[in-house]
């Protein structure tokens, strides 16, 4: 669908060069939701904006459905842009236009006639659940509603792709959820390919089929969202995963613990409980569950258990070895540094 080859974007300011995107090669498949995460300044927006040539790449190639976007004339590029919708963190609605007029503007850009413009704009507002707000001005809407209008505008010309630049970053958690649901619905019902960038791993966990982690203009890790959560390789990826799968055990509890604290990660179909009960039955150890949580990513379970094992040292060691064969295990130190050691779990 979208293929990016050796893309570089260098910004030339008065006194220096700033690298926005550094040699990125990636593809987005038709119909998927692809997420790009990274801290602020990682180059996410630069990369996304190169996908519709809002920013002209310094070098490299951008193709959409086999069309080389960089070879197009200005007019051809405008037509190509009509098949690439885009939404922004700040919504970017024209404040002097009504909701309906904002949506209709995109249709004007593709030279749709007046009557048809209105019909289609109303249909789109219906899709995003704002039919009753057609004649209001953006100033009268909440953040979530504004984003819905901008989604309607982005979908006006039946695009093949929707680019989302931090689309939920300015919204509260509830509104974020509802916008993500809407994006997912659009993705499923219209088969629309979505590329979204965010600094929140939660967003990726919620809706992305695949994702990439970006740092200093480069993609440092890329894969299916579940795999990224279950088997992260890069340190930065692990840090992002932490923000979602985090658990905090009281420091005192760790310091005063007499046993061995074991952190287990269950992936896929493996049920956590049976592994734990087997362990307790087969070995002379006592277990005390300190933390347990199951996250569902792409409808697949990812479980995290933290158990304090007490008993003979040898017995405890054997017990740990036995589970190590089935799941990912890590023994946590007693100094309360769960955070860092967990981030380094292999």
């Amino acid at each position, binding site marked *: 669908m979208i293929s990016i080859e050796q893309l570089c974007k260098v910004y030339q300011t008065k006194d220096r060069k700033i690298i926005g995107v550094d040699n990125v090669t990636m593809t987005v498949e038709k119909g998927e939701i692809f997420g790009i995460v990274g801290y602020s300044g990682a180059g996410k927006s630069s990369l996304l904006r190169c996908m519709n040539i809002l920013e002209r790449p310094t070098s490299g190639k951008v193709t959409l459905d086999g069309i080389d976007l960089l070879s197009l004339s200005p007019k051809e590029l405008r037509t190509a842009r009509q098949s*690439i919708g885009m939404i922004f963190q700040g919504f970017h609605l024209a404040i002097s236009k009504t909701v309906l007029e904002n949506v209709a503007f*995109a249709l004007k850009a593709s030279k749709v006639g007046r009557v048809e413009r209105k019909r289609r704009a109303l249909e789109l507002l219906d899709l995003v659940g704002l039919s009753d707000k057609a004649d209001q001005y953006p100033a009268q809407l909440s953040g979530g509603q504004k984003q819905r209008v901008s989604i309607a505008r982005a979908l006006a010309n039946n695009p093949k792709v929707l680019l989302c630049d931090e689309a939920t970053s300015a919204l509260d958690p509830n509104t974020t959820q509802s916008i993500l649901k809407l994006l997912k619905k659009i993705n499923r019902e219209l088969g629309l390919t979505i590329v979204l960038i965010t600094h929140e791993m939660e967003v990726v966990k919620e809706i992305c089929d695949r994702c990439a982690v970006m740092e200093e203009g480069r993609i440092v890790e890329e894969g299916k969202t579940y795999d990224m959560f279950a088997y992260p390789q890069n340190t930065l990826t692990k840090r992002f995963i932490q923000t979602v799968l985090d658990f905090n055990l009281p420091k005192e509890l760790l310091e005063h613990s007499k046993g061995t604290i074991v952190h287990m990660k269950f992936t896929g179909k493996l049920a956590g409980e049976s592994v734990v009960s087997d362990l307790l039955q087969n070995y002379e150890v006592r277990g005390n569950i300190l933390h347990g949580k199951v996250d569902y990513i792409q409808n697949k379970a990812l479980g995290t258990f933290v158990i304090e094992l007490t008993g003979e040292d040898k017995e405890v060691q054997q017990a740990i070895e036995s589970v190590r064969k089935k799941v990912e295990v890590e023994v946590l130190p007693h100094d309360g540094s769960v955070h860092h050691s967990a981030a380094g779990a292999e």
Partner: protein
Amino acid sequence: MMDQFITLLPELNKSFLETLIMVAIGLGVALIVGLPLGLLLFVTDRDLFLENKWIKGVTGVIVNLVRSVPFIILLVFLFPFTNFLVGTTTGPVAASVALSVAAIPFYARIVEASARDIDRGVIEAAIACGASPWLIIKDIIFPEIKSGLISGLTITAISLIGYSAMAGAIGGGGIGDLAIRYGYYRYDNFVMFTTVILLIVMVQVIQYVGDFLAKYVKKG
């Protein structure tokens, strides 16, 4: 005093009309030439969709050049041009040539400044929609700055009243001319005060109407 006023009335009427003609022509030209020029200055700016260093640079220099010449000097300097254009250098129509030349860059800068206040993101979103430059100017920039355009016209009109007094002093006619002829050269305080009051009322009315219209077109 009433007598004085009645004797002055025909002259006052004539001067008032002349001032109106000068200001109206100046405003009209400002709108027809200054508005597109202001938009041109804006859209050719760095990082905008018709970015063009040359056009922006040359237009900017010309605009600044005209703006930096004191009006009274511009007026005299333009005499040959005025003569060529309207066949005379006296009267309100002749005076409006210089007034128009002064009003164009004045209004153009106001237009440019109001366009700069538009959220760049809105323009960017329009580009992302695949809109043509013309559609963006007509359908995004213009409606977004409509209110600023009217406030700008108000400011321009009021400046033009001031300039028109200067033009009047060297043969343009109008209220300024009246004030100088009677009030200044003949020490006639009555005429002086009457004309000043008339000018104050004119400015007030223009400001009031301008503010009202600017507010009226501002939606959302």
